[in-house]
């Protein structure tokens, strides 16, 4: 394997680290296992914080994981402009760590949702969506109990105004509406980026959607974007 090195961090309670590593390999990258107690990212070019229930989701989802030893290296990597993708619990951790604004709260209706949904890409100006046109609809699964994105009105206006909403929940045809929003998320937000577009967090799971043998492949373009961008020295 010689593709770009993509680290996947395993926290105690991570569930989707194996699928993320597998997705990196299937898409042509070199997966790098990183343990939450590690102090570096193993020389990786990009890093994925996977889904799951790190530290049992105790206190709040992601609240304990943000203090894991490896998170200092993740913050430094993000500061240098290195690509960071937080998926589901990884998104929650990035918000708790202050690397992304806002917070993920309990789903409206309290139900844990686990199903295939659709998201509409809102911007190509991130390292993970550079090959995806704005308006393109991707089929991907969600599975979470705390995925309702919230932020104070000023922060929300800034995220929207700066075009930092990366994905919104939508119909298969790309229309927005409450019936397509699985958790009551503000403005149907499924994923956001930092101001430089190198840190992205999202509740849906692109890493579960890369293998046509087991379901939709809406996750493939995100890995393609990342693997194209990394050698260019993003």
């Amino acid at each position: 394997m010689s593709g770009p090195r993509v680290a996947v961090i395993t926290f105690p309670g991570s569930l989707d680290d194996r699928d993320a590593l597998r997705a990196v390999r299937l898409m042509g990258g070199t997966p790098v296992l990183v343990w939450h107690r590690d102090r570096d990212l193993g020389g990786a070019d990009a890093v994925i914080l996977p889904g799951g229930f790190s530290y049992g989701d105790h206190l709040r989802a992601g609240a304990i994981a943000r203090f894991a030893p490896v998170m200092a290296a993740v913050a430094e990597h993000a500061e240098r402009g290195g690509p960071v993708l937080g998926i589901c619990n990884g998104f929650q951790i990035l918000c708790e760590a202050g690397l992304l604004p806002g917070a993920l709260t309990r789903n409206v209706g309290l139900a844990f949702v686990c199903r295939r949904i659709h998201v509409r890409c809102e911007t190509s100006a991130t390292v993970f969506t550079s090959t995806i046109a704005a308006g393109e609809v991707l089929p991907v699964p969600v599975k979470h109990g705390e995925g309702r994105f919230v932020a104070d009105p000023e922060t929300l206006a800034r995220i929207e105004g700066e075009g930092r909403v990366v994905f919104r929940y939508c119909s298969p045809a790309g229309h927005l509406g409450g019936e397509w929003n699985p958790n009551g998320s503000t403005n149907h937000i499924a994923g956001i980026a930092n101001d430089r577009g190198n840190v992205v967090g999202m509740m849906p799971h692109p890493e579960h959607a890369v293998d046509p043998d087991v379901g939709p492949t809406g996750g493939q373009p995100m890995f393609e974007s990342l693997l194209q961008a990394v050698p260019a020295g993003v």
Partner: protein
Amino acid sequence: MRRRFEVVVMLKPGMADPQGRAVEDALPTMGWSGLTNVRVGKHVELTVEADSEDAARALVEQVADRLLSNPVIEDYRILSAEEVR
């Protein structure tokens, strides 16, 4: 000196609270009425070793700010600080 603190963490006013809503919705089905505005939060107790009550409280506030609550969505208040042996 050891002091026992209690910290209550609540979702900010106006922040949707599905847990509180679920409890509230359950009340009439169990025959209770006249109960509204149910909010569900967290109650944390912890013992602090510090030289003074001010120092202990400052430490608890720091912990409440950085770990026990998420200031984006939650407020906290410190209820009591009893000396313990």
